[in-house]
């Protein structure tokens, strides 16, 4: 599972970085989204990958062994990161549209390179 997980993060990051370096604003925003997926998975992975371990300790007798539960903190961090990443991506989308409207091109520099 670790290998598949790591490969998924690697592929997403690779695609994200490649798209981020492309000249069109749409490619840039797609790249940023890919990167944010990769980063969210990465944070999650840093809490160690374990199957069948809930992150919440129930309030019952015999729930004592902390080893039976996943670390909840990275999951909380991922939630925060998703919310913030989502909001900033939405904001970037607006700026991207404004730039398209004002400059008449979707090139990141606001003008087409000389042919």
């Amino acid at each position: 599972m670790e290998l598949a997980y790591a490969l998924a993060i690697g592929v997403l990051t690779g695609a994200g970085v490649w798209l981020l370096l492309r000249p069109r604003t749409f490619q840039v925003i797609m790249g940023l989204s890919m990167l944010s997926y990769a980063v969210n998975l990465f944070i999650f992975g840093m809490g160690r990958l374990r199957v069948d371990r809930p992150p919440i300790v129930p309030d019952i007798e015999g729930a004592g062994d902390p080893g039976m539960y996943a670390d909840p903190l990275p999951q909380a961090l991922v939630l925060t990161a998703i919310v913030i990443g989502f909001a900033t991506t939405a904001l970037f989308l607006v700026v991207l549209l404004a730039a398209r409207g004002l400059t008449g091109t979707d090139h990141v520099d606001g003008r087409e390179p000389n042919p």
Partner: protein
Amino acid sequence: MNGGPGHWTIVPIALPLVAGAAMLLLGESRRRARAAIGLGSALALLAVAAFLLRSAGGPEGEIAIYLPGNWPPPFGIALAVDRLSAVMLTLTALLAVASLVFSLGRWDRAGVHFQPLFQFQLMGLNGAFMTADLFNLFVFFEVLLVASYGLALHGSGTGRVRASLHYIAVNLAASFTFLIGVSLIYGAAGTLNLADLALRIPALDDHRRTLFDAGAAVLALTFLVKAAAWPLNFWLPRLYAVSAAPVAALFAIMTKVGIYALLRIWSVMFGGASGPTPWFGLDWLLAIGLATATLGAMGLLASQHLGRQVAYSVIVTSGTLLAAFGLGREAVMGPALFYLVSSTLAAGAFFLVVELVERNRSFGADMLAITFEAFELGDEQDPDRPDEVVGVAIPMATAFLGLSFVTCALLVAGLPPLSGFLAKFAMLSALLGPVQTATATTGSWLLLAVVILSGLAGVVAFARSGIRGFWASDRGVPRLALAEAAPVVALLLLCAVLAVQAGPVMRYLDDAARALYRPQQYIDAMSAVAVPDRPPGGGTP
């Protein structure tokens, strides 16, 4: 409680949040009420920051810890105010008041939601300066960044949208590296509280230690983007040059957030007994700082637009500060902090002056400033034609602008008699002091050269644009509102006060620098509040 600041510690975060939210409820049409709330909030922030400055500056250097949720430190979020934080808070509040007053001239009407965004920006800045937790730092970074995106776009226009597009893309990518760094550190050490991290670092085994160092390096990358270190600073000159003047003035402190975060985190994590890699990566920081300052000085000479020149001077400041920190010499850090304060105030004032100078300048005048020299075109005035009158009538406004331009240029370039000179002089004299290692010796000499040469570059660049800007004949009489002149005067007077009162200020900042190299006090203060039923706001027990 020990007479500490108690609940006042949370005010710099809570007040702008409440003020900004109240403005949103009021709606865009109640402009006067919004401006009043904004200004009132900024002034109150200044008062609270001054109070925190005083209470952090006691003989022991009290560190006020505040627990917003009243959870004990390694688990809950903690805020900490020590001398350095208090200085940064005060600096933010000063720039905020000046920019807000300036914006009343006309800029707050140039687009929607200027005032609320400004308050949220202040909230993010203050939070970043006070937090003692890595993930909380990320959240405050995002708050200040999102507000800064809005402010950078304030006034709209093709130039601003284009510059902001780059700014936002770069900073979104930087936020992701921040998260990668934070999660690597969490994965290796299992905590994100700064003081708790410092306690756990010595106990890490080699394997985890490598992971931790990698996380710290990735984190540093983010801060270097914010601090506009070369080669991560190409977004800055254009953005700062096109931003609305009060926004650019407030942005003068934005690069300092990155520098502050580096100082704070490196001091607490790697400053004490931190095992095999004390002050991890500091040599890199020295090299990056020197490169940043050098290339900033080159940019200063090459730029043809006054706003860009000031933006490059901000980069030079960043580079100098990074290099000064990278030297790892305690004696240099105090003067470097003085330089930080002085140059931030000066850059803020300069951005305001640039706006006043530029707005009654004929189109393309600054393009010509260089082409004239390059192509030897000479003045557009015929040299053979005799002047029709002897002597020139100088209107008040022109004289004011000229004087403030010269003062700003002196401050930024570091010429006597103002605080810029004192800061650089103190830094140079500390650099010439005794050193231990060979790297530090070489680094000190290089930094010495860079400080002097970047000052020279500043003088040349500003003299050139000053001559073209003020002695050219193609300009009308500038118009000046009191609300726009007053903040410039106030900021420049503050720099004069900084020069006159250099003794006490320098002592305070020396103490702040000393605390950076003795993080044990910070760590102890945080560990001492680890009792759950203790009321929040207590300092040392």
